[in-house]
């Protein structure tokens, strides 16, 4: 009997949530905030790279930073991510995905960078051959 109760609780919550889903699409205001922030966060990196006013390292850092912030802006204002939707499972899936993505990206770049460095003598001969 207790098992049945436990199963009913999240279900009723889901049904409740579904009823509120109409309000989960944000408002005109939240879309405009997201849009304006995105425009700013796109214009800054493009302007920096096109004009080249800052040293390369500083430009690269700002470009990467703007991208990360803009992705978060899109997640919040366009994809309406929050910790409560679908009982928190969308957030759990997102966190899991981010962990996997970071492991794959960082791991690949790290391993292949060291492989390149350690294979340097061969790599010189190979560049001409492509």
């Amino acid at each position, binding site marked *: 009997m207790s098992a049945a109760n436990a199963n009913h609780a999240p279900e009723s919550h889901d049904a409740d949530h579904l009823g509120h889903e*109409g309000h989960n699409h944000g408002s005109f205001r939240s879309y405009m905030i997201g849009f304006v922030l995105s425009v700013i966060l796109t214009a800054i990196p493009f302007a920096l790279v096109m004009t080249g006013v800052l040293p390369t390292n500083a430009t690269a850092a700002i470009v990467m930073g703007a991208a990360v912030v803009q992705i978060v802006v899109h997640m919040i204002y366009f994809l309406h991510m929050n910790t409560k939707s679908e009982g928190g499972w969308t957030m759990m*899936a997102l966190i899991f995905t981010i962990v996997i993505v970071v492991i794959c990206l960082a791991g690949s770049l790290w391993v292949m960078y060291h492989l390149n460095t350690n294979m340097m003598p061969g790599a010189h001969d190979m560049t001409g051959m492509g």
Partner: protein
Amino acid sequence: MSATTVKTDQADVFYLEEEPHHEEGSSTMLGFWLYLMSDCLIFAMLFAVFGVLGGNYAAGPGPRELFDLDLVAINTAMLLFSSITYGFAMLAMDRGAKRQTLVWLAITGLFGLAFLGIELYEFGHLIHEGATPQRSAFLSAFFTLVGTHGLHVTFGIIWLVTLMVQVGMKGLIPANKRRLMCLSMFWHFLDVIWIGVFTFVYLMGMLR
């Protein structure tokens, strides 16, 4: 009925005697989100490939010689505009305004087509200059990553047109609303991927 009660008294039951009632489509949004996350992993792999091979020009042209940032900026604007117009379509859908929803969806589709057109023009220009996918590992990785994103946008537009027809024929019924919400997530997700593309491929490429 009484027979089952007698049975439950005697032995434990390890299954639900009655299937819990789920509203139709109540799990669709979560399921579609999980699909998007797996799609995200595909792009992560392609980004990793580009990160590893992005410097192997095989004595061919590099990003500085090939990329036209003005074009990329216009493309980025197209996709961003299409994102906000899709948002307006969702707001119109919430109000139950079928005609406005269709108009905003059409505008979104046009921005999407403009994005695709500019991207195909860029690809054509590159291939015309001899910068084909076969030229170097950098170009193979570039065409695979950017092409996969373009292919997603293409299917997004096909999906969008399909939904416009369905909304036109059946109106804003719950099933169509659910489909529009799925496409909304897909469309905004593609814009998120594009942030990664223009940052890592184009802008960082120019800084290399």
